[in-house]
């Protein structure tokens, strides 16, 4: 690739123009990504966009066809997977079924020049951290989904990796346990100062866990930003549409003559009290309940509009057929090209 040496990388993990293919099909089209030390970086994107492939490329399980990767200042893309100093949590946990929980944790510590008591000590400490001491002798088949997940996490953490890769680690769990484990995961990562890349489908999970979020689109990176930033200031329509079911409206509704589109979140619309504040009027099609929020689906000049409000603090009498005048605060509008 490029032969001129770059200065010491500022970033802990530096992925530079990585490409990967399955046979003839190119899946990663020059992906560049930086992750700082101690960061929880979330990879998000629609199914098939290449999240798993990117994670596997970083781990070395998937060969790359171009680009470079450095971790902590050393090239890793030319190293064998087990020499890269990283650990991975697989989507379906990939626990060793013939070993106890303790055995699963100890397996990765074998042959690392540790004495038996040293291995035992580290395993016990990790079991305690993930609260599995009581189940240490159980086989994976005898564990609940949440417990298996914790074993998978513990098995990855016990080898003290420099980078932790998590491929949809919580997607097989029900919502209740998922929320709890999200918190637990975040706490663990913070406490250990761990650098991690987490793949998820779930944008709530991404927002909750990510220090930064990278949204991928068909083998490209669409945007990398903090959760607040990516939500409020999407780089393009793809990103805007992905988050929060934003309204993507013609920009000249707001600024006459302006091209491109305006991104307005459903909670940013305000029913306008007087004509001077009105930007557009819309006809209500139907309403739905979204927990505490009420979603109003309406239509204005051929565009579908989503408007969310809190009935508890803003009692509005809205029924299908009602016509509503909407205003928007200027700072709640974000313009994108195209």
């Amino acid at each position, binding site marked *: 690739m490029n032969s001129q040496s770059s200065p010491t990388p500022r970033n802990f993990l530096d992925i530079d123009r990585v490409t990967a293919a399955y046979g003839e099909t190119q899946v990663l089209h020059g992906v560049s990504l930086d992750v700082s030390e101690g960061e929880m970086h979330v990879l998000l994107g629609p199914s098939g966009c290449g999240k798993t492939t990117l994670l596997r490329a970083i781990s070395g*399980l998937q060969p790359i066809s171009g680009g470079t990767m450095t971790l902590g200042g050393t090239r890793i893309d030319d190293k064998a997977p*087990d020499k890269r100093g990283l650990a991975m949590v*697989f989507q379906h946990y990939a626990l*060793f079924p*013939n070993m106890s929980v303790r055995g699963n944790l100890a397996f990765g510590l074998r042959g690392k020049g540790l004495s038996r008591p040293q291995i035992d000590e580290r395993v016990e400490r990790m079991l305690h951290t993930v609260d599995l001491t009581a189940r240490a002798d159980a086989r994976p088949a005898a564990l609940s989904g949440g417990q298996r997940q914790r074993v998978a996490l513990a098995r990855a953490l016990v080898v003290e990796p420099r980078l932790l890769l998590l491929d949809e680690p919580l997607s097989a769990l029900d919502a209740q346990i998922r929320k709890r484990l999200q918190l637990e995961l975040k706490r663990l990562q913070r406490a250990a100062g761990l650098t991690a890349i987490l793949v998820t489908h779930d944008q709530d999970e991404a927002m909750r866990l990510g220090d930064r979020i990278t949204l991928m689109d068909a083998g490209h990176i669409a945007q990398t930003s903090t959760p607040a930033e990516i939500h409020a200031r999407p780089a393009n329509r793809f990103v805007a549409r992905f988050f929060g079911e934003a309204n993507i409206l013609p920009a000249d509704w707001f600024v006459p003559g302006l091209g491109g589109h305006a991104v307005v979140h459903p909670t940013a619309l305000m029913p306008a009290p007087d004509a001077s504040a009105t930007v557009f009027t819309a006809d209500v099609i139907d309403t739905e309940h979204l927990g505490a929020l009420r979603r109003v689906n309406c239509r204005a000049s051929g565009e579908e509009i989503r408007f969310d409000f809190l009935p508890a603090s803003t009692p509005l009498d809205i029924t299908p057929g009602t016509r509503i005048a909407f205003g928007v605060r200027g700072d709640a509008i974000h313009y994108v090209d195209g």
Partner: protein
Amino acid sequence: MLSRRLYVLPFLALLALIVVWPLSTVVVGSFKPGAPLEHYAYILGSRFYLKAFSVTLKLSLLTTALGLAIAVLPAIALRARSRRLSDLALTIGNIGANFAGVPSVLAFMILLGSNGIVTKLLREAGLMEGFDLYSWSGLVLTYLFFQVSIGTVLVLPVITAIPRDIEEAADLLGQGGARFWASVGLPVVWRQLLSVATLLFANAMGTYATAYTLMGTSAQIVTVRIGELVAGDVFADPGLANALSICLLVVLIAPILLAQLLTAKGTKA
């Protein structure tokens, strides 16, 4: 409920027809009128027949162990490769399994017999001194042919079914390759491998055509002994043949039951 149970009837009828009926005929036929256990006593006191049992057992156990090992290693190697290669191996194994018996032995004779093509070549090269196809080593070789073929067909799917991600997890932990197979891969499927071994063993114990084609009645194999007692015009003694068959069945079933017991225990733990 009752009508569902009726579905098993054809199976039970067939079982009675092809297993219970012949087996009971053999059992009844093995008892000598007047001195019911005399045939059995004779077998247990006969060096000739005891030798046949020990040779058959040794041959079966050895070729089962070797056959399984030879089938498992390529299965592991092919797993890492493409789907197509393992399908090819499966096909070859299938062909081999169907080619077993007389045709395969004839092929071995043409290649490795006293005047075989390969024999001549190897002899000229100064190799293969002392190898004789019509001997114990020839028996092992011809048995291995079908043991490996059948073994491959049965073992490949077992090895292929081991989840990919647990192998990758081991790779990432620096415990890939032989370490993975010794500590995780094979232990995970040992029950299935034991079943395959049982099948190979039973198959070898019951083989007749391979040994008979290769060595005629000089093959010291229980099935060949039974065969000469049934068909031979000099030694015909159906009663003794029946008793030998029952003894063979007992020797054959004992390890199978043991394997079943082992597997059942493993499941509970």
